[in-house]
């Protein structure tokens, strides 16, 4: 069963000793040799910024690229609720093992045991590092760090900085990056977009990037390349991702031979502000932390639903006994704090049954009336003030007076580039960290774990593991950007750009992307089935053809051209969407965020098929138009009892 192309390099020995063992085996590069080595890091979110800063400190020559005007804009900044760490500061019997266990279980037994254990192991150091950097985490009155709870978990291990935890952690990593830029060890290239990966003799040796201000196509060489380019949630057009977040770098790597793992595992977040109309381009997340104190409900009686839709009554006027707190009803042990995939499907179930509370029928309530009564205005304000303000600005309705309305939306992608234990892809010298890889979250990511993974990879894992590869490279000369491989890659990039301008059609990029979003949400969304997925693949193919006949990108390459940027990304979103559907079609089981309608229990819960699908599905590119080849990495659980996820008791 083991696939010769997927060597996970998981160290032998007991789980708790694997990382120590690997670290002791990794070869070290001496300081004078580090100076000769160059590393390219693409992306400046938590993973990229922390990796580049740490590599710079070690003495490597680092080049870091981002598409924004400043590294600080990366979408990690928008994470609200918090970051998990097994500190056990609350004395609630938390431990590395429990964090590991919760993450594996939350991921519905589709993540790699050794990677997740290591993540839990280094989690405590992340908090230490961030506090030392001056991240203003929330504090108790005694000056100690405060914690809150998150979904899928029964302990309080989430550290937070109001509803802006991602911002504060990113500013910490960005500050560390600035320190290294000032020291000269890192050179920063803002407003640069990677458009291809350059492979020489089977190894990653550089990138082709477009200067987004001038349009110049530039070549950059290095001894290794790290992709920290985030997820591909924007395939759906409407998502909680930032407008410019995209999956293009991962797709370029895929086309150059990096395997893409579990693409169908996408997370749908239960607490987003509902869609308001056709012209919307972005969905806004309301932090999961709100589920600590907010209660989710819809009316029990259809007559109340109809009155709500006609604005004849206010939600607060519906008496307690006529409310269906459906998460508390269905999952008494976890209540409103079930994992995201479970909460999302439960909301869909109520709305499909006709109980959606707004005009579109696609919304449920998240109510703070009890919390305000219990905690008082000031403490609720301290915990969620900025989220309440944001909600009110967007909807012009105050959560202090009436419950919020929420609905699930695409938020995060667990799938990504396949990596081994060292975070190296199937291309030697190419690494993928953070959301861009697949390894830690299985079929569903727990809240407050994305920040943890990004920083674990960037601060504490990659800087060690990449040394093992680079220790064999210091004798090699600097990569020559005049090599024919660079010229060939640049030529292909120019051809792709010229081809887009040559269409001269009538449709805007966004209007076609919206159509892709509709196809994805309809056929590859919260509930999937064989017929729909086949239809989805067909529809994506048709839309791709439509794009190449009708798209209109004004202007030229040699200028600041946002339409061209979007068009280049959309070309890749077609391929990702198709790959997601293909993967979802092959995975005939329900697991985490991947819900196949054919595979559910009588109560409508996910039904895994461990016998046939307990593996990582990694796809190998076989050329344009050709079907990709599936490789399987079997998942072994030696330290955890595999069970059906149960959040009921």
């Amino acid at each position: 069963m083991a696939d010769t192309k997927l060597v996970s390099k998981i160290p032998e020995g007991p789980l708790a000793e694997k990382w120590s063992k690997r670290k002791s085996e990794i070869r070290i590069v001496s300081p004078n040799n580090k100076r000769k080595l160059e590393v390219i890091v693409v992306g400046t979110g938590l993973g990229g910024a922390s990796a580049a800063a740490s590599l710079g400190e070690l003495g490597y020559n680092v080049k870091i690229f981002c598409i924004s005007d400043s590294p600080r804009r990366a979408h990690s900044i928008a994470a609200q609720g918090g970051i998990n760490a097994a500190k056990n500061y609350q004395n609630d019997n938390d431990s590395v093992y429990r964090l590991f266990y919760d993450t594996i279980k939350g991921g519905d037994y589709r993540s790699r045991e050794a990677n997740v254990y290591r993540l839990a192991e280094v989690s405590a150091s992340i908090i230490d590092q961030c506090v030392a950097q001056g991240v203003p985490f929330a504090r108790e009155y005694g000056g100690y760090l405060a914690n809150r709870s998150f979904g899928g978990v029964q302990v309080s291990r989430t550290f937070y900085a109001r509803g802006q935890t991602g911002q504060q952690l990113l500013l910490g990593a960005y500050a560390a990056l600035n320190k290294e830029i000032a020291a000269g060890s890192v050179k920063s290239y803002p407003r640069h977009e990677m458009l291809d990966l350059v492979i020489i003799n089977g190894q990653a040796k550089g990138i082709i990037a477009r200067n987004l201000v001038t349009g110049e196509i530039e070549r950059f060489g290095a001894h290794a390349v790290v992709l920290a380019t985030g997820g591909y949630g924007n395939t759906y057009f409407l998502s909680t991702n930032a407008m410019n977040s995209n999956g293009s770098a991962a797709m370029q790597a895929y086309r150059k031979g990096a395997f893409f793992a579990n693409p169908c595992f996408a997370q749908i977040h239960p607490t987003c502000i509902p869609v308001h109309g056709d012209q919307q381009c972005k969905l806004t997340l309301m932090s999961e932390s709100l589920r600590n104190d907010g209660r989710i409900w819809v009316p029990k009686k259809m007559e109340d639903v109809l009155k709500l839709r006609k604005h004849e009554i206010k939600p607060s006027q519906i008496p307690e006994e006529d409310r269906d707190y459906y998460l508390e009803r269905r999952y008494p042990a976890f209540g409103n704090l079930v994992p995201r995939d479970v909460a999302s499907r439960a909301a869909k179930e109520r709305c499909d049954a006709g109980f959606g509370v707004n005009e579109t029928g696609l919304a449920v309530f998240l109510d703070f009336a009890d919390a305000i009564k219990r905690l008082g205005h000031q403490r609720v304000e301290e915990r969620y003030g900025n989220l309440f303000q944001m909600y009110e600005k967007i909807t012009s309705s105050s959560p202090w007076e009436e419950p919020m309305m929420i609905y699930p939306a695409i938020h995060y992608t667990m799938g990504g580039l396949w990596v081994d234990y060292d975070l190296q892809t199937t291309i030697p010298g190419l690494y993928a960290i953070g959301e861009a890889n697949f390894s830690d979250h299985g079929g569903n990511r727990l809240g407050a774990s994305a920040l943890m993974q990004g920083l674990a990879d960037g601060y504490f894992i990659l800087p060690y593991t990449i040394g093992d590869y680079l220790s064999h490279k210091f004798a090699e000369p600097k990569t020559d950007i005049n090599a024919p491989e660079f010229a060939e890659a640049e030529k292909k990039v120019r051809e792709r750009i010229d081809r887009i301008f040559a269409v001269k059609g009538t449709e805007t990029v966004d209007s076609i992307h919206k159509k892709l979003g509709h196809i994805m949400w309809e056929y590859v969304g919260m509930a999937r089935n064989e017929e729909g997925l086949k239809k989805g693949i067909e529809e994506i193919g048709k839309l791709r053809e439509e794009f190449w006949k009708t798209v209109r990108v004004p202007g030229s390459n040699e200028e600041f051209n946002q339409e061209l940027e979007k068009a280049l990304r959309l070309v890749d979103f077609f391929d990702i969407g198709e790959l997601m559907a293909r993967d979802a079609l092959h995975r005939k089981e329900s697991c985490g965020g991947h819900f196949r309608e054919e595979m559910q229990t009588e109560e409508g819960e996910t039904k895994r098929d461990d016998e046939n699908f307990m593996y990582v599905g990694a796809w190998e590119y076989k050329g344009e138009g050709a079907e990709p080849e599936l490789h399987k990495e079997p998942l072994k659980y030696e330290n955890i009892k595999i069970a059906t996820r149960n959040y009921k008791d």
Partner: protein
Amino acid sequence: MEYNIKVWRQRNAKTKGHFETYHVTDVEEDASFLEMLDILNDQLIRQGIDPIAFDHDCREGICGACSLYIDGRAHGPDDQVTTCQLFMRHFQPGATITVEPWRSAAFPVIKDLVVDRQAFDKILQAGGFISVRTGAAQDANAILIPHDDAELSMDAAACVGCGACVATCKNGSAMLFVAARVSSLALLPQGRPEAARRARAMVAKMDELGFGNCTNTRACEMECPKHVTIDHIARLNREYLKARFSE
């Protein structure tokens, strides 16, 4: 809804800019200001007109990418929001809305409404960090920080680096931006050994990059989308004075 958008057009940093007025139609009532610009751009492209370039990304008010001077105010007529969190319900249907880029010598125009804010990065590179290496930290709870100090520090750290303070200041001063970082760190025990150097280096870099002086008009505080107040400028001044005396 329909609006007239009077907007600054400028091909690149080298050419001269000018205002153009466009008519935008079919804007939904709940649309955000940037969604209105998306709709306008869609209509312009279909008319064969080059779309309007503007910076934006998260559209949740946190990344700090969006800017825009709208009807004479940074981030438009609503208070304590970035432009992406400004909604069209704040404008009369049919109104003519004037949209300009940030206007400051330190933020040169790249195209239309997009400006270059790398000066902010450079100020932070001059000293807006604590020099701790990865792995060198002690246990997080070994450093106790009073609740109220952490909250105050967070008030300053909420700065998103959008540049509204500079754009709105008649002197083009970056004092509120610099103060936000210096004050946030000054309220914490970490990083004290380099506090004096930090204050001197960041202020010197700000001056070098062509930002103006602060004359306490408080315009920055009024327009800051994250409500960073000038108390933090006072704290920066204290830090700076202390640093000068310690030279």
